């Protein structure tokens, strides 16, 4: 009863943007994709939701384990890099172009490159920006492949 009173009393209440999320999950080593839609406009500002969130359906996939996989570590590392590059295409490109940034740090951690090697690697990636991103429609798998190629030469 109390909840209905509160609900009625606050019917006009609370604006928010709502997020509709669809989850399509690739089966395999904890990969997942999400599409996020955002509703905007004054109407939605006045009436909206506050349900706050998406419904991702992965498990601790990215950083800890490749659930359901029994592939060798090297393959797993490559796969993690592929996933990361695919999920962060734009931000990673910005970091590579500017020579620093959290996305670049993350990439280096996944590739297990650290210390002085990391500084050299970041510079090499920045210098080779054009070969990593030759056109505006370059695919994530090609980007990951090029990055791996450049890192292998450090």
């Amino acid at each position, binding site marked *: 009863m109390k909840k209905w009173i509160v609900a009625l009393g606050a019917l006009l209440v609370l604006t928010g943007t709502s997020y*509709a999320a669809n989850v399509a999950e690739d089966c395999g080593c904890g990969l997942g994709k999400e599409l996020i839609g955002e509703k905007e406009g004054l109407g939605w500002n006045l009436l909206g939701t506050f349900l706050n*969130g998406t419904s991702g359906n992965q498990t601790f996939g990215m950083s800890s384990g490749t659930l359901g996989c029994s592939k060798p570590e090297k393959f797993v590392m490559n796969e993690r890099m592929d996933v990361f590059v695919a999920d962060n295409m734009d931000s990673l490109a910005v970091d590579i172009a500017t020579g620093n940034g959290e996305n670049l740090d993350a990439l280096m951690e996944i590739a297990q490159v650290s210390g002085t090697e990391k500084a050299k690697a970041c510079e090499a990636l920045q210098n080779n920006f054009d070969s990593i991103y030759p056109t505006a429609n370059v695919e994530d798998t090609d980007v990951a492949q090029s990055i791996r190629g450049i890192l292998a030469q450090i």
Partner: protein
Amino acid sequence: MVLAAIIPASLFAQPLSPDTEELIQIARQRHLSEDPYWRTLLHCPTGASPYESFVDAPTFFLAETGKTDAEAELDALIRTFFGSDEPKRPICRFIARYTWVYEQLSDVIDTPPLICEEAERITPSSATLVFPTYHLNNPASMFGHTFITIETNYETPMLADAVNYAALPDSRNPLTYMVKGIAGSFKGYYSILPYYKKIQEYGDMAQRDIWEYPLNLTPEETRRMVLYILELKDTYSYYYFFDKNCSYMLQFLLEAARPGLSLTQDKGLTVIPIDTIKAMQRQSLITDARYRPSTGSRIRAGLDRLSKPEAKLARQLSDNAISPDAFLAMDLPDETKRVTLDLVTDVTRYRLAKKKIGQAEYRETFLGTLRARKTLGKGSPEEKTVPAPPEPTKGHDAARISTTVGVVDGDSFEEIAVTPAFTNLLNTDHTKREGIQIEFLHTRARFNNEEKELSLEGLTILDIISLAPRNTFIRPLSWTFHTGYEQRMTKTGEMKGAYSLRAATGMAWNLTEESIVFLLPEAEFLSSKGLDKGAAVGAGIHTGLLFSPASNWRTLLSGHLTRRMPDDTSESRLTFENNLTLNKNNRIGLAVNRTDVEEHHTWETSLSWHHYF
């Protein structure tokens, strides 16, 4: 053979392993089902009596009555996993409960524990509480959202795993969303996804700043939390926006991590995310805060770094009026070029997020800008820093009580007001460049000393003000919304009670970094005995200047000018209000108001003390 017939059949039946029944007895003797931690594992708030789990999915429980009978659930757990037979349920879905019961009975069990492969593969080291704050132009998002990230093998924050409790709505109709969300008709699920996805969702797409609060949990405590989370995958609880919401449910995770911790007992009518963070600070779970700016905040910081002509160049670059190569050829210091190109990159991404440009145009501009940027080296960290706004937990508490003394046209009065939530335009906790107000059920009672009368001066059901300043790249519309009961002047000069529903939308700009000027055409529906026909509609303007002369002083000069029909009256309400912040939860206000309706007017001056709690 005759002998065989005489021997009772029960001797040949497979008995229940004596161990499980014995274990159940031992568990009873040790009062394990009454242990507060057992109840936390079953998702029951600390100290709640009688026991009831907040989880609604039947698959979460082993016993049919598990939701309301803690002892039955414990018995069922022992029977399922501590027998000599192969367990008929997967251990991973009950791993937290199993681990704890095993620990409690390890002195009388001689078999090694069952292993959950999934849990063994995860190596948690620490956890962080993440708080996406409000979205510019959406004050209700100021209540915010909280989720937890769990750091495992990697140090880079964005590679942590985010654990998020959210409702899965089955309806897209805004009204149904609201009602269902409040009434608990949506199912809430925990989901696990890479933190960088949440950063993209909140920071890039929703333009919300994110605050990260590292939790001081040990790896062992974090591991207990992870086991608890593994049990909650695919289970649901009904999501209630006001109380059983994201922030409240996250507290269970912390209680599971650290036995003895009590956070869930404080559930009032509402649970506001920022309050749960403050509660964790009080329990010494959080001592630090990190700021992660949204794309919008980076744009504003970038603009601040440029002079007017440089900003114009940035604008031209983003509009493709000049090419990146032409820009590189200009005679400008490298640092300026870097900062300008970084800004243009952010602007381009912002425009895509706001759907102001299409994918094809975006890609060309984006790549072109980066190609130019890559020739300029790394640059210094200062070129990318974004000054952090006031840290949210340092702000005032949510509820407010105000005592006022004042004079209205020569009559003195006292007033007392209560506002359950949340924040006022004049608060100095928020950045000086924006104006935010959300007030809920703001109730005022006034005692007029001349007429010796106590009356309800006003009851605002909801009042929202969002003043979002426009700059060359980000051009939001500011807006206000108000509904409630208040005193309004009639055409004969009396004050009469009225119900007002009004909304305005328009523009705001920063004149200086500490001030914002706004101009919002407004429409109002008014219902009152003081009106000719009992009701009227009005059109007009709401305009003013919000200014912060000092960090603890904010002042507002504003006016509502309205023309009402069918009464054919003009009304003007001007206010000059000041707020001086004494400390986190105490403020002093000084206000002067003048109301004019046709040839009548009234002056009101008041001095208030506002206390937050």
